[in-house]
Every structure is written in C-alpha cells, then in structure tokens.
C-alpha cells in the first residue's frame, strides 16, 4: 500500500493564494483530491474549518463539492457538448439557482475572465486552451466557493498564457475573496503566491510564507 498523504496539516487565512509544490508522486494531486472530497482517505480524517469532510455523505457531500470548493483542472475538463456559458451555469444548477440567475452570473463571470459574447456561446472545442481554462475558472467561481482548488492550472498552457491565467486567478481570488490552493511544480508561479508549501513523500516539509 502506498501512503500518498500522511499527517499533513496547514492553515490558510481566508482570501489567500497558496501554492503546494512538490515533485511528481509527492502526493500533491492526492492531497487536492481529498481536500475537494473527490477521494476518501483509507484512514484518518480531513478537517476543513473544523468539519471532518471524510464523514460527508449524500447531499452533504454534493453540497460541499458544489458550494464549498471550486475546481480548476489542468486539462480544463469542460463538458464538451455544452457551450462556455452552459458549462459555467452547470454547478449553479446543483444548488438549485433559477435559470435567469444562472445566466446572469455566468455572463458576469465569463466577462470577468475576458470572454466575448460570441465566445460564451461556443463549445469548448471551438475555444483555445487559454480560453477553455478561463471558462473553467469561471465555472469554479460560479457558486462563490470558499476555496478554489487548482490542479496545475497552467500546466497545459504556454508560459505567456499561463501567466495570464495565473494573474486572472489571483485577481479573481481577491475580487471574490476566495481562498485558492493551487498545486504546481512551476516554481516561478509558486513564488508569486501568498504562501507556498512543499510536499515530499506525503508530508509537508517546507512551509513558506511571504
């Protein structure tokens, strides 16, 4: 049995932009999966704001995923059959927001991430990588989550676009007062975050604050 994450504990003030760095296989993605309640630890507990999320089941678990955290994935993971605006509206459906509210919020977010009206109605296949990641960020912010968990958000982008996306995340985090935890192995990006943790063999070895 491989112990991907073990005895990790850290605290982040609200609204901070935090990075977790580490080599491949260090447990970064496993940590993020468990923070987002996408995966369950085989043993132990994960406390977020004093709540053990490993005990969440059913509606509580869905609610946590929909409202407490927002995900930004390395490979965007947009639903290919939905347009950009529909992708952003999707998580709002899960907290039963009305359709007009969903449309208004999705348009607002897509404007904030820099998509034109025309681009909002395109399917992901008709958008560039950078534009898709913008849509993914807008989707992550849709339900105003407390935490945004970003897994190598610039990993599939060229450095220029990656920088723009990073700046966008940073800007939106401040604007929406959202805490962002991003996993990256790009030290230049990690260096720009408010705080950075290094993960090695499933343990935090070097907390670094600015």
């Amino acid at each position, binding site marked *: 049995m491989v112990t991907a994450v073990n005895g990790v504990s850290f605290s982040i003030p609200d609204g901070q932009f935090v990075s977790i760095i580490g080599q491949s296989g260090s447990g970064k993605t496993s940590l993020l999966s468990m923070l987002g309640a*996408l*995966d369950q630890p085989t043993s132990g507990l994960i406390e977020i704001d004093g709540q053990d999320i490993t005990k969440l089941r059913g509606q509580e678990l869905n609610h946590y995923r*929909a409202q407490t955290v927002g995900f930004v994935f390395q490979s965007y993971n947009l639903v290919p059959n939905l347009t950009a605006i529909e992708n952003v509206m999707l998580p709002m459906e899960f907290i039963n927001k009305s359709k007009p509210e969903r449309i208004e919020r999705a348009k607002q977010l897509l404007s904030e991430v820099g998509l034109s009206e025309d681009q909002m109605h395109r399917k992901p296949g008709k958008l560039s990588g950078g534009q898709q990641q913008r849509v993914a960020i807008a989707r992550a912010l849709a339900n105003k989550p407390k935490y945004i968990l970003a897994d190598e958000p610039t990993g599939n982008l060229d450095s220029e676009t990656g920088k723009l996306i990073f700046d966008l995340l940073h800007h939106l985090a401040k604007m929406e007062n959202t805490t962002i935890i991003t996993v990256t192995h790009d030290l230049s990006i990690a260096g720009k975050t408010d705080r950075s943790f290094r993960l090695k063999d499933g343990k935090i070895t070097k907390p670094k604050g600015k």
Partner: protein
Amino acid sequence: MNWFSRGVRNAFRNLTRTFALIIILGLSIGLSLSMLIAHQAVSQKISNVKSSVYNTISIFPAGIRGFAGGGTPLTMSQLKPIASLSHVIKLDESLSDRMTSSDTSLQSAVSAGKLGRRFAANGFGGFGGGANFNFKPPVTVNGTTNPEDLRSSAATTGGGNFTLVSGQVFNGNANNNVALIGTKLAAKNNLKVGSTFTAYNTTITVVGIFTSGNTFGDNQVIMPLETLQRISGETGDVTSASAYVDSVTNLNSVTNEIKKQLGSSADITNSQQQAQNTVSSLEGIQTVSLYSLIGAVIAGGVIILMTMVMIVRERRREIGVIKAIGSSNLRVAMQFMAEAVTLTIVAAIVGIIIGALASNPITNMLVSNSSNSRTRALGGSSPGPRHFSTVGGLGFFHRNFSSIHSTVGFSIIGYGLVAAILIALIGSAVASYFIAKVRPAEVMRVE
C-alpha cells in the same frame, strides 16, 4: 439547461452513431411490433375459430356425407331427444336432395362442364368413369330448420355466409310452400321475389333471394324442412343435423351421449378435432410470433443497454467532472436515462413506421408458410375434386387462414412507446450502476 435537456441533446451528440443506433433499435422495435400485431391478429382469429366451430356437433346418417356414400336417412323422431339433452342449446336439422328436370321446373345455373359429365358418368364415382354428354346438373334443394346457417346442411357445406339480397327469410319451422333461392339460380330462371316454380309437382313461391358468395351456394333452393319432407315424400327424414352445445368443455360429453342415443345409425363428429386441426397451425404461428416478440424486445433491450454502457464508459471523465462540481449520482443517472429514452423514442417512431409497413407482410408470410406446410400435411396439394366436404375441413382451414389481417391501432403504438421507454429504462439502469461507480477523483488524472 437541466439534466433532461442535457440528456436529450446528448442523444444527438454523435450523429453517425445516433443514426446507426436508431436504425438498429428501430428495426428491433419494428420487429417487436410486427410480432405483437401478428400475435394479436392470430389470437383474435383463434378466438373466432373457437367460438364459431368449437361448440358444434355434426350428425349424419351412417355412411353418407352430402350426396356421396349411401345409407338410411335419420328421422326427426330419432333426433328429437337430442334437442332436449342437457347442454344442447339448439338442434338444426336438414334434408337435402337434388332435383332433376323431372322433379322441378328450375334449370341449374351451373353448366355440366367436364367435371359434371365425368361425375354423372359413373354415378358420381369420380374420375374413374367415362363422360356422360347428356348430363344436366341437378338443382340442390335444402330443407332446413335454420335457413340462414348454410353450414347446417350437408348439401350446402362450405356454402359461405348467407346474405339476403331481396325478400325475406321464412320461418324454419313452417310448412308453407315457400323457398329462398340463390342469386344465380334466380337469374338463370328469371325469378324474383313473388315468382313461382314447381318442385315435386308442387308450386313453390319465392319469398327471398340470397347469396352465399360462391357459385355452388347461389345455385340452390332452401325450403322449410317440413315443406321439403312433405313435397318430396320423405316425411320425417333428415340427412344432416347440427347440435350446438353451450360450452366447448361439454362438447365431448354431449357427443358421447348422442352417439349412445343414435348408436350405429349415425356418423357423429364434433368440431373440436376439426377446429383443433385448424387452430393448431394458428397456435404455431402464435407461438412463433410470441417468441419472436420476446426475442426482439430482449434484443432491443440489449442494444440500448450495451450502447448506454459504452456511452457511460466513454464519458467516465465527463461524469467524474459533473460529480466533482456537485452533481448527485441520481441527477447524472437521470441525464443518461433521458438520453436513452430520447434515443429509444426516436427509434420507436422509426420502429412503428417499420411495424406498420411490415406487420401485414410478416403476418401473411408466417400464415402462408404455415398454411402451405399444413396443406401438404393434409394432402391438399393432390389434384381433383373432393366429394367429402366435411364441416370445418380443408376449405374451412383455408378460409380461416386467408382472412387474417393485422392492423396497427393506437393501442399498438402505445405498446410500442411503452416498450421503448421500458427498454430505455432497463438499458439505462445498468448504466446508472456504472455511473455510481465512477469516482470523481478520476478527473484528476491527466490524459
């Protein structure tokens, strides 16, 4: 956009695959409907055959059928106790004779032809005899207590359905000098309602003209039984009788009781065996159509099930994403159910069209194949005339088979749509299981 509209839209996500699936599923649903229609048509026919012939017992003087064979006529006094047997609801009696030119003023509407001359040459012995070129076909007269039932007489066996063309039907228990005559006989002899003709030196008044739908039947005279007995000098004689029993279940017991009462003086058959011969082939078709229906429905279910499983496997990542951003398993499953239902409803529409077009040809093909094999089994392919024309015989068999028609009603369309939705739900139920098994953490994998 909600789970339903996403499901509907996803059904047309890959147009090539959707088209192929709809065609395959449509064929399966079309075949299911065709088999359902065939099954219903045949079931209805079986029910009709059973209700029309199952409860009849035919009684003939021993050794005679129609005008073939020989023997001694039965008498009304012999048959009288039969009418009062328990479970016998009616007894029709008839006396048949053939009037030659010395018996009647009527001329047959049917010319002797090659067959008539051959039969006449050797006392109606068949093809073995030579030809009698002076032969003039006699006119068949049937005295009956039930003039509207052409099956009740040995002479008119296979005579089709009685339809009054003009005039009125006489009372079968009367003893008046009246007659119904067939349309062809009336035309040949220029007779109308109210016209008269002579039979056995008695003037008979035409009270009605009927048609049976065939030349033989339309060349006949029908009189009240007692009238024919009186004018022909065969008082009390009966050449055939039909006893109607209240229920199929009592048919054999009543048959045995009649046999016991009449002993060796009568040949007694009931329609159960004859009908069973006919119905057994229909039941074969019914079974084939039922199994085909079940097979086609299962095939449809398997097609949609495999398709949905394939789609779920293809979209594992997408399902993971939707779950990762807060959707419940149920909501994702409902989206896939909507997709499956959309696909099957479109396929059902195609299937209903296919079913509507194919049901009659398929039913006819099944019936035709079964009919041909049945005819061969009964020796129907051998040429030549048959003197023994028993009630419910080969002609009866063909009549029943040739009159099966399938129709597509709203109930069939309803069944089709319900079946499609059931197939879709069954198909997507397994898919739902796979959906529930998809771990949202899978989306973290980078491909």
